[in-house]
């Protein structure tokens, strides 16, 4: 984990020196994660790719301003959050904060505690949660960000982030329990 962070920091430093191959590697390394995160916020796949593109262009443009290379993940997610939110605002979807349900898929599942199947179930249930809850849970599960980092990414206070994560977890557990009962 620590090695990952350090190699990331080295890549960021190389990018700050305008090393194109380092940037390419950074894109390869972070793209699947960003894609997953953005897919949980923006539903249309072509919108996700557009947002990803804007995110990377903004990263390339502003990477020299990043003071601490170790904070790259937080900074990257912050940019993609802002891009996604501005896209949703354009379409008036962010204010709504809810999405349609994907209940049909998960009802047939029995909750199995094996990590892989649990992940599959969580992935399906994430689609049922409120957008704000889905976002914090994705950040929590995918990157293990701290409350402070999550607050920074989403642009809310630490207290709000903490309570949002708490409610999101409760909502997810309730959904998990529901899926287990069926």
């Amino acid at each position, binding site marked *: *984990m620590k090695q990952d962070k*350090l190699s990331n920091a080295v890549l960021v430093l190389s990018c*700050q020196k*305008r090393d*194109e191959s380092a*940037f*390419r590697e950074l*894109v*390869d390394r972070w*793209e*699947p*994660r960003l*894609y*997953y995160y953005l*897919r949980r916020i923006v539903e249309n*796949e072509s919108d996700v*790719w557009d947002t*990803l*593109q804007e995110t*990377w*262009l903004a990263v*390339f*443009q502003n990477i*020299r301003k990043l*003071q*601490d*290379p170790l904070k790259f993940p937080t900074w990257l997610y912050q940019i993609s959050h802002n891009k996604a939110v501005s896209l949703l605002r354009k379409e008036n979807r962010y204010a709504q904060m809810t999405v349609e349900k994907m209940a049909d898929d998960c009802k047939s599942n029995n909750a199995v505690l094996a*990590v*892989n199947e*649990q*992940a*599959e179930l*969580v*992935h*399906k249930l994430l689609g049922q949660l409120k957008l704000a809850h889905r976002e914090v849970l994705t950040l929590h*599960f*995918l*990157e*293990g960000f701290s409350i402070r980092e999550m607050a920074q990414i989403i642009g809310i206070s630490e207290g709000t982030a903490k309570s949002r994560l708490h409610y999101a977890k409760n909502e997810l557990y309730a959904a998990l329990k529901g899926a287990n009962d069926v």
Partner: protein
Amino acid sequence: MSEPNGKKEFADNLLAQDPPSADMQQRHKEVLLKKIERRMCLQRTVIIAIYMVIFLAAFGAFNLRKYTDNVVHAIGWGTVSLHIFLWSLIYILRGICMEMEGLIEKRLDNDERRRNKNQNLFLTILAIVLFVLSTWFLYRSFFLTDSLKAAQKVVSVLWTTIFFLIFYPFRTASLIAKLWFEYKKMDLYGRT
């Protein structure tokens, strides 16, 4: 299974539930890199164009000095060419200095960072004020009729650049030395 490994495995499995299609990923990367290449090319072109305009302007002013039969104008154009050239040199030196400062800044604490920022802001404002004032002074010297007075006045315009021409190279050198010490410290004590 230790907890961090479990978390990582869970995250990996979560990612595996909705991976981007390889085709789209490849296409997206190609488009992205093309856009970035174009952007970099444009930036380089703009910078080269700006420098070319500056040097052409300086060279033009230097040539104008030859085609005038007015002594005051000849002195004025000669000084204008040097004025443009020296200030553009200061701009380049400042750029190099800022680049070095960006590298060392990551190792400074907040107080030092703030102090550096304030100092840079002060120097930038000072440079802009001096550039504007000396340009105005130079412009006014074209209207003088006494060539001796004109020569005496325009020389002082060139002196306004001296401070920056000395300050930035020395600052850059000291930053390089600081960086080298930091590197040595990391080398000796394995500090990151």
